[in-house]
């Protein structure tokens, strides 16, 4: 019964730790943005006799009263100015409220506390300065959500919907780290694993074989190192699945894996010493007689509506494969054992193959030394993203090699781009003498950060041009 409302709420924000005017601030405390409240609301089940009935609500700080989110009532008046387009966000000095209507009449409201600086003041009362401009947000559309809320309503009324929302969002919100969101979250792209042709063919044939042997499997996706290599899903569905895998499912399982990386021994799962394969969804231990063979359900788009699928995620070392099976099929112990025996050894082998090739490639000279520029690339057509800015990016950690102020500028440029459809190019020089270049052309966006104090506009341009040619 565990329905996964695959998270689509892709949230992104970033904030600089050092703004120019607090350079000296050793006594200043900085608070990052944090999620205060989250509501799901349908005006049809709206306030009755002064009481607001949320379909789902979660408060992270008890002190925040619900009427903080009162703006939800105010959609109609704002339609005075724009009858067709409701508000998307409300900004106040202390927080921001974001509104998102994934489905007709269903509204999600998120209240986020603005980042702020606390500096000691003479009077003893801390002087709070709210840094409003720091948060930027993108709530994107989810095809995966379509019909979900209303379908649940049809099936079991408000009570069922509430139950499901409760189940999904409770965990989802706990795992949400607003402080580490940045431009990559705005794109919500997919990072592809760079691979030589031979290895790629190997993977393709692996996928084909698996789909043949396990004929229940409808779609397959293959990932390595949290990067996508092969997917049979539609792009938009894959994007959301990818987000779910990389920000939620994989991180949850990463710790035991890290602990046991170099030894095949997993004491809790003794028995199978032939491979490292294991289920990330479904049964944790096949040998356990009590094991339940339930997998999360996801919804993907089809030409006429959507279909419901079981999601099996199976992982060996750094390679992960997702099998999606029609939800009407019953998944038994036998099927899982068959899958484990079949996929486990081959995936283990494949994973070490990829690892080897990857390491060879990495050792090629020239790529070792630090380049004098860093970039983020995103292609709206195939959702491919690439970043040399991020050293590590998970839901909770965004470790970038550049100053957060620069990340904020990238975000600004991106929001400038999104306001017009035309191709544009923006080159800026920051107060700290970095050059930042943003280029939008033919559905692709490229952001380059150059650390060349004394370069002029033409040199910067040339550098970028050579980069684009190389890339």
């Amino acid at each position: 019964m565990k329905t996964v409302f695959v998270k689509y709420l892709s949230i992104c924000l970033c904030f600089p730790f050092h703004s120019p005017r607090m350079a000296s601030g050793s006594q200043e405390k900085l608070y990052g943005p944090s999620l205060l409240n989250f509501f799901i609301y349908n005006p049809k089940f709206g306030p009755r006799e002064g009481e607001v009935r949320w379909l789902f609500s979660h408060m992270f700080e008890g002190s925040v009263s619900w009427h903080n989110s009162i703006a939800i009532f105010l959609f109609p008046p704002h339609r005075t100015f724009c009858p067709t387009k409701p508000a998307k966000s409300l900004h106040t000095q202390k927080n921001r409220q974001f509104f998102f209507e994934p489905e007709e009449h269903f509204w999600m409201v998120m209240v986020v506390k603005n980042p702020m600086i606390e500096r000691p003041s003479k009077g003893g009362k801390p002087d709070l300065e709210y840094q409003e401009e720091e948060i930027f947000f993108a709530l994107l559309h989810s095809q995966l959500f379509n019909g979900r809320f209303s379908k649940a309503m049809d099936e079991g009324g408000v009570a069922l919907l509430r139950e499901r929302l409760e189940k999904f969002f409770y965990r989802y919100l706990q795992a949400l780290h607003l402080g580490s969101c940045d431009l990559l979250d705005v794109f919500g792209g997919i990072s592809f694993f760079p691979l030589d042709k031979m290895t790629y063919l190997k993977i393709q044939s692996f996928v084909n074989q698996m789909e043949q042997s396990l004929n229940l499997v409808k779609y397959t996706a293959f990932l390595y190192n949290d990067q996508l290599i092969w997917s049979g899903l539609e792009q938009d569905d894959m994007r959301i699945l990818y987000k779910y895998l990389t920000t939620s499912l994989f991180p949850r399982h990463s710790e035991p894996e890290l602990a046991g990386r170099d030894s095949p021994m997993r004491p809790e799962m003794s028995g199978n010493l032939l491979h490292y394969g294991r289920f990330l969804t479904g049964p944790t231990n096949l040998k356990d007689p009590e094991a339940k063979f339930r997998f999360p359900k996801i919804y993907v788009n089809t030409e006429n509506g959507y279909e419901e699928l079981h999601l099996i995620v199976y992982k060996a070392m750094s390679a992960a494969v997702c099998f999606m099976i029609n939800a009407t099929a019953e998944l038994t112990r036998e099927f899982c054992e068959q899958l484990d025996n079949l996929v486990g050894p081959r995936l283990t082998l494949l994973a070490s193959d990829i690892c080897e090739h990857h390491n060879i490639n990495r050792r090629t000279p020239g790529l070792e030394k630090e380049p004098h520029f860093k970039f983020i690339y995103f292609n709206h057509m195939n959702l491919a993203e690439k970043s040399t800015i991020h050293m590590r990016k998970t839901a909770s950690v965004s470790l970038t090699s550049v100053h957060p102020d620069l990340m904020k500028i990238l975000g600004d440029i991106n929001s400038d781009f999104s306001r017009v459809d035309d191709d544009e190019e923006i080159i800026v020089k920051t107060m700290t003498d970095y050059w930042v270049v943003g280029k939008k052309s033919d559905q692709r966006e490229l952001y380059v950060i150059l650390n060349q104090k004394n370069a002029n506009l033409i040199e910067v341009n040339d550098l970028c041009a050579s980069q684009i040619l190389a890339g």
Partner: protein
Amino acid sequence: MAADVHNSKVNWDIQNESLAPIDKLRIERSDSPTPGIVEGTEPGAAQEKAMFVHTQSFEDLTAETRDTVDGDQEVESCDLTKLSNDLSQLSTHLLGQEEEQGEAEEKGEDQKVEMFDESLASVTSQDSSPCGREDICDITSDAWRNQRKHVFVLSEAGKPIYSRYGTEEALSSTMGVMMALVSFVEADKNMIKSIHGDGYKVVFLRKSPLVLVSVARTRQSEQELSRELCYIYYQIVSLLTITQLNQIFERKQNYDLRRLLAGSEHLNDNLLKQLDRDPGFLLSAVTCVPLAVSTRDIITSSLQAAKAKNLVFSILLAGNQLVSLVRKKDQYLHPMDLHLLLNLVGSSSSFREGEGWTPICLPKFNPSGFFHAHISYLDSSSDLCLILISTSREDFFCLSDCKHRFLERLWRRNAFQNLLEALQTPTYPVDLVGIPELRHFVYKSKSSGLYTSPELPPTYLVDEEQERLMGLYQYLHGRIHNSRNPLRYIYHCGQRENLLAWVTSGFEMYLCFSPLGTKVLAMNTVTKLLKWIRKEEDRLFILSPQTY
């Protein structure tokens, strides 16, 4: 240096302290200005002390944030019962619509239309002063909804004070909802800033006892829109003073301020129009009539000579351009105050009738007191307008005499004729600079607070195109002066034009090239343009501002 430029501290105490840069010994003005140019030596920099208070972009906004946070903490928890009353009122008001809306969205709209129709009917039955904008007056029409930028002013009791389009009466329920929204958020010791939707922004500016709201479909940032609202706020203060404004609402919370502001709507209308078109408002600067230095010197010395005991500023304008300005020693005018004066003169024909005499508050100088301005045109056919500002309300005849002394001197020295001739060509074409593909530019010297800009090329002469170009400048300005993340330099390549913005400690410039302009050209243009401005600076700028 860099941090200096964007320092957000504002000094209100102008009388006692000068904000102008320290007198610099200027041995020679360098011939080829370099990028690292220092404030006070850039082309157009004043030789003596500047005549304006030094300003920072968004100074009001950054200063205000601090004020309100401080104030906010002092205010103890508000009356909760009142709030919950407000809330239930509001939700019943809205719920009615929402229930309908559940079935069909249009139905909710219809209902609103009806509601507004009633109030509209009551408006039209009154004989209000001619509106002259019938179709956009109807707030149910698409024409009204699709305006690029709406501006509303309301009192804390939710009473309408001003609306850019449509009559305030018809909007009273909309304004009531806006005020409810403001007070909801404030009940939580918070302050509402803006609402963002697809393609539009609603920005709130809280300036007790007023609330100002802008609903814009432009590309402008929240910061830029707040700055515009700030101008409207100061426009209102300049008519009433902050003291009077506060007193009125202390005495009677639901006072209808329109009684006192009657007839001033066109001041706000005109100001908003200027904000959309005049780069000076964006840059906190004014532009000068290009004038031979000898002619300007005669005018300035004549103004200097025509002094009086209580006279603080003598300002000679030609339309929206400055001819000369003489000030009392140690008194500086804020560019914003001068903009309000420009707006006062520009939006009223009343000063052509005779010699005008009016109390006026210059809010950036002192928001709580009135100056008295003698405003008159030098002759009936030209745009030359003289503003003499005095501290005494009894000074009319004295200033009238100053004006005549000034005029006599001009005649005696043949400067008047020269001035009139110069006014035949109050602008210059961009071709004069001699850079192909350069369509337009705006250059501001920071130390003098003056800017220069050529006339608009044919491409931008249509209203929409002019506002689009200004929109691009506004966008660059907003980005480069972003209070959190200021930039030095922006080069922007678009489909219809390429733009360059550059801010140093001495100047800021915004250049507009045709899409054929290359980056190499842009680079070379900057140097060439700075040289040209240096060459022309004594014609385009006032290099030696004077005191009495």
